């Protein structure tokens, strides 16, 4: 099967990594590490870029997902919902070495979607009467209070897909979908690690989850695969 790089989006991993630098605002797909690209995480660690701002659902596990980047001391800030599965993230926060901004999970997902959808913000009433209110504007709609939640975008987004065609149309695998379609849309440069790249026309238009219009760079290859916590337990 000959893959024509019609749109010039298929690149080598080192070409993709040129976009990830010190201080890059980096958004990542994944939930507990599932759906985070092992290959791109590995490359970020090898390149050892510093002072990243990370945006994503959680801080992974110490040896799984974005947790590896955090444990390698590469992040100065994280916007996330949960760091409980990675004790190192908690230590870095306590020691003041990594700033953490918590968002409720559904709110984080909507903020990223808003960033990818060109919205100026969304009004959400989850977190009212809690410390999540702090610093946020409260907007009344028909006499009910909502928090003004601002959109989130990143300079670079890393996305893990099952299959990409050469335009960057993507499908995902089961629960590895999670935040990936949201991240794909909310990043200035979207880098996709696809397990497989297929020619244009191979994907069923009904089944495409992310239209290729959002994808800038497609890489493929093996590397960085981690042992899952449940494999470690066995």
């Amino acid at each position: 099967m000959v893959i024509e790089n019609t749109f010039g989006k298929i690149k080598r991993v080192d070409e993709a990594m040129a976009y990830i630098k010190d201080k890059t605002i980096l958004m990542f797909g994944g939930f507990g590490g599932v759906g985070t690209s092992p290959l791109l995480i590995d490359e970020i660690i090898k390149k050892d870029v510093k002072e990243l701002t990370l945006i994503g659902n959680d801080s992974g596990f110490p040896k799984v997902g974005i947790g590896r980047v955090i444990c390698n001391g590469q992040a100065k800030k994280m916007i996330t919902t949960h760091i409980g599965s990675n004790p190192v993230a908690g230590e870095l926060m306590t020691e003041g070495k990594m700033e953490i901004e918590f968002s409720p999970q559904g709110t984080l997902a909507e903020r990223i979607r808003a960033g990818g959808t060109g919205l100026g913000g969304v009004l959400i009433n989850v977190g009212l009467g809690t410390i999540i209110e702090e610093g946020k504007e409260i907007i009344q709609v028909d006499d009910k209070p909502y928090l003004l939640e601002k959109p989130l975008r990143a300079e670079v987004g890393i996305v893990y897909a099952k299959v990409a065609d050469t335009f960057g149309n993507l499908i995902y695998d089961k629960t590895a979908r999670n935040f990936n379609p949201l991240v794909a849309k909310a990043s200035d440069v979207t880098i996709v690690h696809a397990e497989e790249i297929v020619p244009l026309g191979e994907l069923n238009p009904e089944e495409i989850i992310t239209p290729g219009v959002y994808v800038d760079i497609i890489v493929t290859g093996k590397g960085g695969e981690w042992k899952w916590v449940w494999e470690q337990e066995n």
Partner: protein
Amino acid sequence: MGLGTRELMAKRAAEEISNGNIVNLGIGIPTLVSDFIRSDIHVFLHSENGFLGIGPKPATSKEDKNLINAGGFPCTTVKGASYFDSAESFAIIRSGKLDITILGALEVDEKGNLANWIVPGKRVPGMGGGMDLAEKAKKVVVVTTHTNKNGSPKIKKICSLPLTAQTCVGLIITELAVIEVTEEGLILKEIFGGTTVDEVISRTEASLIVSKNLRVINYE
């Protein structure tokens, strides 16, 4: 063989689930609830990562690294399951389509306020999807030990820890009792066999109204 304390609580929580319900189970004891759902009803278990229709745990070596529940453990699917992204997953919660969520707690109080995500200065793991679930599920069932490790009551007059959501809890299930949150206050509806009303009251900081139809739960 009798059930352990955790299983008793899970079994009681499962009684809250009806046919056709959409249910989200938190980690810990709530996860055990799925083992006790009646086999003659059809419910869909929701997973925050983006998935409706969680099935049983797979056999060892049959795990799929891309089929994982929100707690991080391999799972399977039931017939009628669907995958979606995490925004859609929380749209289901936020739009009120979740019938029941069963959650753990650090503290619950007389108004049904819930604190279960942070112990300032000690444990700051983040709220994950807990705020969305507590705020938006049609019914919030809390399953928790009656007191904490030091023996202090977790059912308080007023929560002292930062809240997860206000006035959200509908039912509290502990290893001692089942307590309903109402506008009149907390109603002690059921006690497990082996305890007494007096013991429950003495180990609860909040005021309890004892139901006239108190049920004593004796499974098996």
